[in-house]
């Protein structure tokens, strides 16, 4: 199983990352950013579907709120009516999960690739020899520098990176999460809005900074594409001090 994983996912990710690093002037950080963009391009059809689902859900909010008011006391009926509404609109509310699930093996492969490519120990450097393709761009890039901006990509991320990862994730989620009318749902969705950014922020502190960089860049790309595909900031409302609360 490990051999198949290495052959199909881990080694291609590792070698592409190292090759990108050489092409981008020996910067492993830029290579991670470039790989993130490539991954986002590959997963674009899924992302597009997810964004369309989000947009459709956003457009359906008045109707959903109406249903919540109407059937608020009968949860079973409310669920039935909402499912009917989703079906009529051709929206799958769980469709948003697929891009996340697809990214999971990529995160694992990227984590392994960062640890292998940076070869923090003599054993990992020697072990790297058996996982590299015979491309000139790969052999000329080894060994890689782990320094990028203020980060050591092979060491645990710092607070600044954690704040960037958590903050960008919060913004991305806030753009798509519709405000709930039901007070119980309100508190659940407020919690959800905080839990994921907090979790990823904390993960950035315990995983190599390279992985945190991937998450941060991935979130920023997500925010940008969401802005242009759904036409704006979605549910993220910026309010200036002189603007009254609507």
């Amino acid at each position, binding site marked *: 199983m490990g051999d198949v994983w290495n052959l199909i996912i881990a080694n291609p990710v590792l070698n592409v990352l190292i090759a990108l690093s050489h092409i981008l002037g020996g910067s492993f950080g830029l290579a991670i950013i470039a790989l993130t963009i490539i991954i986002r391009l590959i997963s674009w059809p899924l992302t597009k579907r997810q964004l369309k689902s989000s947009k459709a859900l956003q457009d359906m909010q008045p109707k959903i709120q109406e249903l919540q008011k109407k059937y608020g006391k009968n949860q079973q009926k409310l669920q039935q009516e909402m499912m009917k509404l989703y079906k009529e609109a051709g929206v799958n509310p769980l469709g948003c999960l697929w891009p996340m699930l697809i990214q999971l093996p990529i995160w694992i492969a990227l984590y392994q690739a960062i640890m292998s490519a940076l070869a923090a120990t*003599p054993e990992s*450097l020697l072990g790297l020899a058996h996982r590299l393709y015979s491309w*000139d761009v790969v*052999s000329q890039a080894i060994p890689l*520098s782990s320094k990028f901006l203020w980060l050591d990509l092979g060491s645990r991320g710092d607070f600044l990176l954690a704040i960037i990862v958590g903050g960008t994730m919060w913004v991305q989620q806030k753009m798509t999460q519709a405000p709930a009318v039901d007070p119980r749902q309100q508190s659940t969705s407020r919690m959800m809005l905080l839990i994921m950014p907090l979790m990823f922020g904390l993960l950035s502190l315990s995983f190599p900074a390279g992985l945190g960089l991937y998450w941060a860049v991935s979130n920023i790309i997500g925010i940008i594409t969401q802005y242009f595909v759904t036409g704006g900031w979605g549910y993220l409302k910026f309010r200036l001090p002189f603007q009254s609360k609507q």
Partner: protein
Amino acid sequence: MGGWSGPVVHDGIIYVGSRDGRVVAINASSREQQWQWPDTDALRSLVYTTPKVLGDLVYVGTYSGLVYALTIDRGAERWVYPRTGSIGAIVGTPVVVNETIYISSSDGRVYALDTTFGDFKWTWPPLAEKPLAEKLWTSPAVKGDTLYVSTFDGHIYALSAETGELLDWSFEAEAGFASSPVIDEDTIYVGSFDRHLYAVKIGSDEPMWKFPQEEPAANWFWASPIVDEGIVYAGCLDGKLYAIEAKTGEKIWEFDAESPIVSSPVLIDNLLVVTDESGTVYVFNLGAEIGDEAVPLKTISIGADVKSAFWAQEGLVYIRGEDNQLYVVDIDKGEVSWKVSLTIEE
């Protein structure tokens, strides 16, 4: 733990770093342990360096960034450098020349210490300056009053052995150097991550030759080569051992061990001894006629993986296996003569 310290034999005692972070001295005749260091677990550290013996001291650099001088009779600590704190992790085996021990460190600097008291002589670059490289895991090579250092970013630097200052000449390759440099006459031989072995004439900006001359090898030249009578013997991680004409870079013969060659070859008289990662020892008779493809005189398996440097003298080969055992191979008999565990029972 780990580490790939190799053994060294001096006056009938074998000194080796164990995989559990100790230095162990074993009497080669009685096969019994003389001493082990340290006594306390807190001082144990990964050891990648092969101990060096000079006079009544054995020197070892640790992955925790400390250099120790231990007495050869009891393993008592004579001195440690630095006295407080540590330098970067030490992976390359220190070099001892003329009462000076030279250490390359993972902080990208070379240190020179006095062998008797461990007093600091110099470090290059000085601590306030940018290091030579992000990390130095190779050993320096010394010729005359010059120290040559190969780096992972593809440089060979020449330093004054006396002061550590950078000398005028340096060499830059497109790819990083994987092995420590070896000097024969006025030429440096060094393995690269671009799957070539480089021969560089000291003072020249261009390599004298790169081997293989056409297609690169299938993997890195990780182990330092050795040079004898105008022939370079180089092992490659693709499992091949090459004999190369030192002047021209032409291949004389090759041998496929079918397992990566991680350790440098060793010569005893006219016998060339090579180990591969799977723990097979190959002995070649250089006195006999060898065609394009060499056939080993002896092939002996120790039954354990090998990543460490090994020691060979008087028909015996001393190898530390990855199973934390020390193997002594008798070349004449073609078998493991004896072995001893380096693991200390708690």
